[in-house]
């Protein structure tokens, strides 16, 4: 699938952006030119040679704070996505094959989760369990699980009733074979799409929560926190809110673009699309993935 997405022009852009994000997570704090916590007397300055993005109200270098805050924001977004995937997709697939009771129980649990508004609930949980970002992210993750459950279940149901699965059953296949050979292939693309867009949701959720002051205490740098403090000094540095916002926007856009692309390259129409793209680039035709 990766190869197929690379084959399409817009796919390469999305992968590039996400690749940079990954780099930032790994190396962000190390690339920071200054200590993000260290203030200076140069307060609320605009872009300059020493401080390419200026400094905030305590004289801290904005670029360094941006880079230092990256791992937290991006890692939290990934955390949300992964939790949602595991908590949602696995029961989703199993609900088709594990009997009526399991199916009923999971469906009702998922219905309950959908009813809860996630930011409000996340705030409420931190009030209960203490002001830690991880707790809040786990909650947000669980609250995104319904989407994965629904998608996994729907894809599995569509496959489970088809003649080719019946053909496999007639050849003596057990549930494990059917899930491995026929279900997973159909379930992956929709799940990947859901994951990609959930990463965007996670990023915005963590930014929103840290904006509200939940999770990470100042002076630790977070993108949401930067946005909150910068807003108070808008008249002095009007461009300041753009500094954390633009990376958030670009990353969410890249995640959603990736989601669209996974959808586009999947299935039969996807194979045709990739073949056309390859031909246009003058590559010799390969025998599919």
């Amino acid at each position: 699938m990766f190869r197929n997405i690379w084959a399409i022009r817009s796919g390469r852009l999305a992968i590039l952006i996400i690749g940079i994000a990954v780099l930032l997570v790994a190396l962000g704090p190390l690339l920071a030119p200054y200590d993000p916590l260290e203030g200076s007397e140069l307060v609320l300055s605009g872009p300059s040679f020493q401080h390419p993005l200026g400094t905030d109200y305590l004289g801290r270098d904005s670029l360094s704070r941006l880079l230092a805050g990256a791992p937290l924001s991006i890692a939290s977004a990934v955390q949300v996505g992964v939790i949602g995937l595991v908590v949602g997709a696995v029961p989703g697939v199993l609900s088709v094959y594990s009997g009526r009771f399991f199916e009923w129980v999971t469906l009702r649990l998922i219905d309950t989760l959908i009813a809860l508004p996630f930011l409000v609930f996340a705030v409420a949980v931190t009030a209960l369990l203490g002001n830690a970002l991880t707790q809040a992210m786990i909650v947000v993750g669980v609250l995104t699980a319904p989407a994965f459950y629904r998608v996994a279940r729907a894809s599995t149901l569509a496959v489970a009733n088809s003649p080719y699965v019946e053909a496999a059953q007639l050849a003596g296949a057990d549930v494990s074979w059917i899930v491995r050979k026929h279900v997973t292939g159909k379930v992956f693309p929709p799940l990947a799409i859901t994951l990609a867009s959930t990463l965007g949701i996670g990023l915005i959720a963590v930014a929103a929560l840290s904006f509200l002051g939940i999770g990470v205490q100042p002076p630790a740098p977070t993108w949401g926190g930067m946005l909150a403090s910068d807003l108070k000094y808008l008249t002095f540095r009007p461009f300041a809110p753009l500094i954390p916002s633009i990376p958030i926007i670009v990353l969410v856009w890249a995640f959603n673009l990736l989601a669209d692309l996974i959808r586009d390259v999947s299935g039969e129409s996807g194979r045709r699309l990739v073949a056309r793209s390859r031909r246009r680039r003058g590559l010799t035709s390969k025998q599919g993935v």
Partner: protein
Amino acid sequence: MSLDQNPLLDVRNLDVSYGHGAKRRQILDGVSFRIAPGEALGLIGETGSGKSTVARAILGLVETDRGEILVEDHDLTTLSRTQWREFRREGIVQYVFQDPLRSLDPERTIAQSLAEPLEIAGALGRDVIRERVAASLATVALDADILPRFPGEISGGQRQRVAVARALITNPRLIILDEPVSALDSANRVNVIEILAALRDSGATLLFISHDLGSVAGVTDRLIVLYRGQVVEEGPTAEVLRRPGHPYSRLLVGSAPTLRRGAVDRAEREELRRLLTEHDVSSL
């Protein structure tokens, strides 16, 4: 065909019903028939005759109320779920679906779909499986270049031939075919019918299930006519088609369109219809 030999398939007094209490519907009522080894039997019936249920009962997809289904020495009505799985992995009985497009997984290549029954059985090594897959193409006149393709990329006729090849790959003793040519156009129909005729000639035991007399007339040795869950006629194909006895078989044979005028004309059709609506099946 010799009746002295042990039949390959022996269905005795099969009863299948659906639903409970007031909503209970009898689908099959005392259905009995046999297929000798190397014989091709056609099971003819229209909607509501129960013909698909006969196939599903033999394949273990539907519960039977009464009766036995004997394949070689196994009584299929007594098998547990685990025993069914083992029986199916042996590949003794195989099934060709009506719709070639939906009976192949669209996301797996032809090679993968053909190998699947052997892989599930788990008894053969990968190389042997690959050889068997390649060999299976020969019996249905397909080229090896079809192997890496996906079902959506090949024609309907090719798909149905792949389905037949897949049914043959476990060297089954009995092959059940459900409306094998109904979904195909003329040129493809002839191709597939010729392949099936060749199969029959090579000694395979076949059970054709169809509502279309024309598609099974050329490939079957004997015919059974099913009407409302009961067998109303049985005999060599030529006999049943030339001199049908039961009013329903006469109506059926007389209704099928032919190039030349058949033995049953319109007036008689009207008479037969009247007879069938007024009387209970078993009294005729």
